[in-house]
């Protein structure tokens, strides 16, 4: 039942009416995480290399960000995977237009 425990974090997407929850322990890499996003948000076209996601419904670009243990919002992908899983408190798929200074 409990493999290595689970770490559920909230995933908010700008413009969506509700949030989702994802278990970070189920994945071993950023790539797997982005694939999970594809399954969860089927209207997103995801380019794994560029860490960019395009919403086919409105053509807008989204950037994956997360809130770390210090309460700061960071760009997903900068630190090693395990460190990310450890420090991630929640995630937000931010519209590129709002991700000023991050990208």
């Amino acid at each position, binding site marked *: 039942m409990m493999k290595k425990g689970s770490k559920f974090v909230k995933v908010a997407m*700008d*413009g969506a009416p*509700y*949030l*989702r929850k994802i278990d970070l322990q189920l994945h071993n890499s950023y790539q797997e995480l982005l694939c999970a996003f594809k399954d969860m948000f089927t209207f997103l076209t995801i380019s794994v290399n560029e860490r960019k996601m395009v919403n086919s419904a409105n053509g807008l670009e989204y950037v994956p960000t997360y809130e770390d243990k210090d309460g700061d919002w960071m760009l997903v992908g900068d630190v090693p995977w395990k460190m990310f899983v450890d420090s991630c408190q929640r995630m*937000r798929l931010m519209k590129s237009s709002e991700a000023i200074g991050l990208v």
Partner: protein
Amino acid sequence: MNSFDPQKQESFWQERRATSMEESLKHYKATNMAPPSNPRTMRPGFSGGFDDDLVAAVVPSVTVVLEGRSICQRISLHKHGSYQSLARALRQMFVDMADSSNETNLDLSNAIPGYLIAYEDMENDLLLVGDLNWKDFVRVAKRIRILPVKAKSRKQNKE
């Protein structure tokens, strides 16, 4: 203690409570146990039945809001053991169907056709029902909101 004077009654019970607490503490000291600060810590590792019954008796039911309707319903999540059970209950609440024969493939996504089932948690975020395991969901769900599917394309200012 033949008096029915409420004030005397209250102090009577206060005394009794104090005495029984002392007695309990004595018992724990005698047996070298730490007195329980919380019923749950009494039996570490035991997450069994008596806890759930206690919780079910004490935890209030959650409100179920169907967007657009002015009158809400209530549901007691502890009376259900799974998402499927919840789906069935919500269908009975909101879908006018005399025929319950197609219950076999009933789940959250088709319980109320045209609607999706979301919940508000303790941080006041609105999340889709179904991502967590049932027990965790029951613990965090404060209110259930049933939204029309078209709401997906609605732009909202979140955070």
